[in-house]
């Protein structure tokens, strides 16, 4: 029963995370999804993942989102999606139906295996993963520098508009030149 409640709540939170108009609300719904996923991980016996998911997924990432939204500001305009909504929904339903058809119900029973402890698994058996994580953390620090980097004053128009205006001016000048040549 509790599993069903957690699953339904997490799916509703996930849908609300991108359906809501305000970006800050979107970040908070995402934090809710993360918290519910960490509870499910705890119930499945993955205690370390539950703690890390709650502290990193619901804590750090949410703070980053709120910080970024406070810098970038809310986007006021409501935009329609590029892909038709019916097509997007159809693609998702077909993909999920195929995945569910191939995997559900889960009936496989595995014999219990003697497993090594988690620290031994992380530091000895999967030590390459730790090196990859260190490299990723450095990449994340560089990304954070990009977030904090000061930019020049915000442009009044987008770069694309400026280039379009410049191109239009050049075309007009060319047109005027050709008209002058014709009159001569």
């Amino acid at each position, binding site marked *: 029963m509790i*599993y069903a409640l957690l*699953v339904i709540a*997490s*799916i509703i939170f*996930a849908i609300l995370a*991108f359906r809501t108009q305000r*970006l800050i609300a*979107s*970040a908070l719904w*995402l934090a809710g999804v*993360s918290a519910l996923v960490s509870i*499910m*991980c705890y*119930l*499945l016996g*993955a205690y*370390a*993942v539950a703690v*890390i*998911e709650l502290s*990193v*997924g619901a804590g750090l*990432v949410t703070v980053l*989102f709120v910080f*970024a939204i406070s810098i*970038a*500001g809310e986007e006021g305009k409501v935009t*329609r999606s*590029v892909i038709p*909504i019916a097509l997007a929904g159809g693609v*998702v*339903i077909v*993909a*999920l139906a195929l995945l*569910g058809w191939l*995997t*559900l*119900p*889960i009936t496989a029973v595995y014999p219990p*295996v003697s*497993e*090594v402890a988690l620290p031994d*698994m992380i530091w000895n*058996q*999967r030590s390459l*993963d730790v090196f*990859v*994580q260190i490299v*990723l953390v450095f*990449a*994340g620090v560089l*990304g*954070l520098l*990009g*977030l904090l980097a000061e*930019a020049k004053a915000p*442009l009044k128009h*987008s770069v*694309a508009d400026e*280039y379009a205006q410049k191109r239009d001016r050049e075309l007009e000048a060319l047109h005027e030149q050709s008209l002058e040549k014709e009159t001569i």
Partner: protein
Amino acid sequence: MNFTPENIIFIGVLGLLGAGLYGLLVSRNLIKVVVALQILVKAAILGLVLAGNISQQINLSQSLAITVIVADTVVAVIGISLAVQIRRHLGSLDVIDVATLRG
């Protein structure tokens, strides 16, 4: 179908995957695209932990899930900083405005 906890959580994984994929296809705001990506990765983490629970190898799945969480956080940081820089330079978070090539 028996509604065992494993089956219920797998349905949750499918639901989160669907929600993330739909959000990724439909969203035009760059920050919402990152949010949809985060939902997809959360489904992947839950799927990994569920697989470890079923195959009685929870420590192996935890080790893999921790790697995925680190990668996911770095992707979020880089995605957000790209979105902020695009907002500073183009004045918009719309993915359509990012395409500045006009022919």
